[in-house]
């Protein structure tokens, strides 16, 4: 697997960002052939990310806020591909909120990552809709509007895998990503990822140091692919096991006594409670492994629509004649 880059990263000092590194590792460790992956993005710093991983996969850097629709067409057009989309908080929460909402509703099988820094990096640091109430810009401007919680929204709308992580927690992020890759349905991951150029300062609630101090890991996530021997030590009373569609399982070590990642209400309650305390709950917040995905709903052939031969897509003359008869 190649990690070579052909273009400059969006900002100096960013290198290939930490999220991109975890994506590369996750696909590699799961042994996924990159030619079976499609990478999609909208517009923004985050949206440049797909150019930096899996270079033998097809990629599409589309238009601002509209990656969900392009991904929907692509995934429905070729259901065999594993789709990963990388968006940003502006790309998702502002211009793209409409398409984001409908993507979650459809439970389209894809991994949807939000690189969430609470600001617009590419246009030099304005607030985005996920910026916390009261946080400040480098210029001293205070944000006086409440943030959109993309995780709560995704759970509410029907996404079947919703997680939040922090770019500075490689272990957790990788475990979540690997679980997401094995999930069938929309896997939405909000990754708090400080913008080192525009939003990594004292007044920002999405700076590296703020998140490090206010991160409440929801669970210790271990991802166990089904083909590996499962030898994880755990206390049965404090873990939850979830079997993913591919047969892989994830173990969530419970931090909160009564937390059920398969229960919508507890997920939403947790998000509201932690937010009130100014904390970020991280981990897999919600999962519904058996929920019917969009491809099932559409009832389409197993063979990719894009690969169907003319014999299967153009009906014969008898069909045309039959139709013509109805108009006589």
């Amino acid at each position, binding site marked *: 697997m190649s990690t070579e880059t052909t273009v400059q990263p969006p900002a100096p000092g960013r290198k290939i960002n930490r999220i991109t590194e975890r994506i590369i590792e996750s696909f590699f460790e799961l042994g996924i052939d990159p030619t079976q992956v499609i990478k999609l993005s909208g517009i923004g710093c985050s949206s440049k990310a797909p150019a930096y991983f899996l270079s033998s996969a*097809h990629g599409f850097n589309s238009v601002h806020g509209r990656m969900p629709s392009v991904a929907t067409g692509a995934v429905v057009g070729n259901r065999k591909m594993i789709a990963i989309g990388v968006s940003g908080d502006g790309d998702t929460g502002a211009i793209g909120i409409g398409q984001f909402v*409908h993507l979650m509703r459809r439970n389209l099988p894809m991994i949807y990552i939000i690189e969430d820094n609470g600001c617009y990096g590419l246009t030099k640091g304005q607030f985005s809709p996920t910026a916390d109430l009261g946080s400040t810009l480098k210029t001293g401007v205070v944000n006086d509007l409440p943030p959109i919680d993309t995780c709560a929204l995704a759970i509410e709308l029907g996404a079947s895998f919703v997680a939040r992580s922090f770019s500075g927690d490689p272990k957790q992020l990788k475990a979540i990503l690997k679980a997401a890759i094995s999930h069938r349905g929309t896997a939405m991951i909000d990754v708090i990822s400080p913008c080192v150029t525009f939003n990594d300062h004292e007044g920002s609630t999405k700076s590296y140091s703020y998140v490090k101090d206010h991160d409440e890991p929801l669970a210790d996530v271990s991802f166990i692919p089904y083909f590996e021997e499962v030898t994880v030590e755990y206390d049965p009373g404090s873990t939850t096991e979830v079997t993913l569609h591919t047969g892989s399982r994830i173990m969530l070590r419970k931090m909160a006594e009564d937390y059920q990642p398969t229960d919508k209400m507890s997920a939403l309650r947790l998000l509201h409670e932690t937010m009130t305390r100014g904390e970020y709950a991280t981990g897999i917040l919600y999962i519904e492994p058996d929920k019917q995905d969009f491809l099932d709903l559409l009832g389409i052939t197993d063979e990719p629509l894009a690969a169907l031969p003319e014999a299967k897509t153009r009906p014969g003359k008898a069909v045309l004649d039959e139709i013509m008869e109805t108009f006589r």
Partner: protein
Amino acid sequence: MSVTASAVQDTIREARSARIANDFAIQVATVNGSGSQTANLVLLRSIFQMGVPVSGKNMFPSNIAGLPTWYTIRASSKGYIGRKKEVDFLVAMNPETAREDVLTLPSGAATVYDEPLRLKDLRGDVIFYPVPFDKLITPITHDAKLRRLVRNMIYDGVLSKLLSIDMAQMEKALRKQLGKKEKAIALNMSALKAGYEYAEANLPKLDPFVIEPMNKTQGMLLIEGNAAAAIGCMMAGVTFVSWYPITPSSSLCESLIDYLKKYRKDPETGKATYAVIQAEDEIAALGMVIGASWVGARAMTSTAGPGISLMAEFTGLGYYTEVPAVIFDIQRVGPSTGLPTRTAQQDVLAAAVLSHGDTQHPMLLPSSASECYTMAMDAFDLAERLQTPVFVLSDLDLGMNTWMSYPFEYPKKPLDRGKRLDEATLRRIGEFARYRDVDGDGIPYRTVPGDGMPAYFARGSGHNEKAQYSERADDYANNLDRLARKFQTARTLVPKPEVDLVRGARVGFIGYGTTHWAIVESRDQLKAERGIDVSYLRLRAYPFTKEVSDFIDACDRVYLVEQNRDAQMLSLLKMECSAVQFAKLRSIRHYIGLPIDGRSVTMELLKQEEGR
């Protein structure tokens, strides 16, 4: 009838003693949502079944129920199926519009009306036939809702008697319309008979209009353009459809869904060989089409004016990343929401250059139901051959109204999937570069995910021929020049115009889309009434082909006839003309929300010719 009134009617009868067979227009004025559609289609179909060329046009409001609606049926022995300006026979069922409807009739017209409206004193030069609809419907059913629905069938019965439309044909048409619903058929038949019998007993024939059997519709169909386009899309092997409901385009996708459900199941698995998604808006609709097309599916959407505006950004992305897309635009009246249920050709300029930056898009211009069918297939082939969004510009008149057509022919050519890279081609060209002009026609080779060929990264930002991000001046300019070259290639691939150069004619018409039907009629009028020969070129696509330039050269003056205020197609044509050609170009425009008619074209041409 008073003595005076009867004297007036006698005078009219003498003045119009000649029978007018198969050349008149019937207009039915009702209230939207009153269930008049069945009655109107039965009337249309029974005239058609009698072998008389006919067309039906619905003029309806943007409303679910309660506002006035008019349905016009034109019988024409000569086969003119464009709109006729004058109404000859009115059926006045709507109290709100009845007075105005009667006052605008030409002298000598006839009116069947609901008796309580008391219209007969409005004019002395119109023939009136009062019909007590409520009294006639009472014995037929006690159900108030059913009464409202079948009440309209009474006027079909009255017209059957007054216009000599065969009752057996009426019944046949009714059965065609209602299928196997025997109860509904029986109920409607009693209403039909009640109307006929009332007319027979109470309404002596005073007007000259009659339908006489002919044999001019044999082997033909009655079909709406949107249904025809839907059939074309299915036969084009469409695999992905995404759409957002909008008048007058919705019926295209709705028909398509019905056909796909019925005819496009995998015979082995029973699963769908297509996907249809009702998107959250037109932006997402085209975004999905581009995503599906990028992975190699045959993808389309259908919309109207406001949707075209919303699709601007994605159309530019499709153009620049070179992803095929088929976009039907069933044009309606703008700007903005405009008159959503009225017809126009107002998106020509917008579609031709939709999106910011330097963009150009091929457009196909169907005039008939059968062209809606063939051009649907052409559009998919062109979009994949040219790797770009292609527009099909229909309009409300063509899409939603009922047109006569010969049955459609089964396609002879296999699908053209365009330049898809394969092993052999890769060996021949040595190296894959997504945006390299290998063959000199501006069209590069393309790969799709999962085809085993090299991948590339599609992006709406600047790129070089290897699809890598680039802001270099030469990369940018070379790419844009190649795209322009590709558009020149499009010129050689799009459907050619239909040309009728009349020897000795100095004047020419250029028309496109539904304007065609008015031009056909106008040319006959000019020849018959004034002895003027007019040559004619019917555009079938943009970019313009060489035939257009040759046609202008062959004429002294060319009138481009179109249904918009700003002479949009003429503007596109002027951009490509020489100074000499430019000086020959004139414009005839029609933009009142109703389909253009032959008489208006004739009058405008004569006015401009005389004022020269």
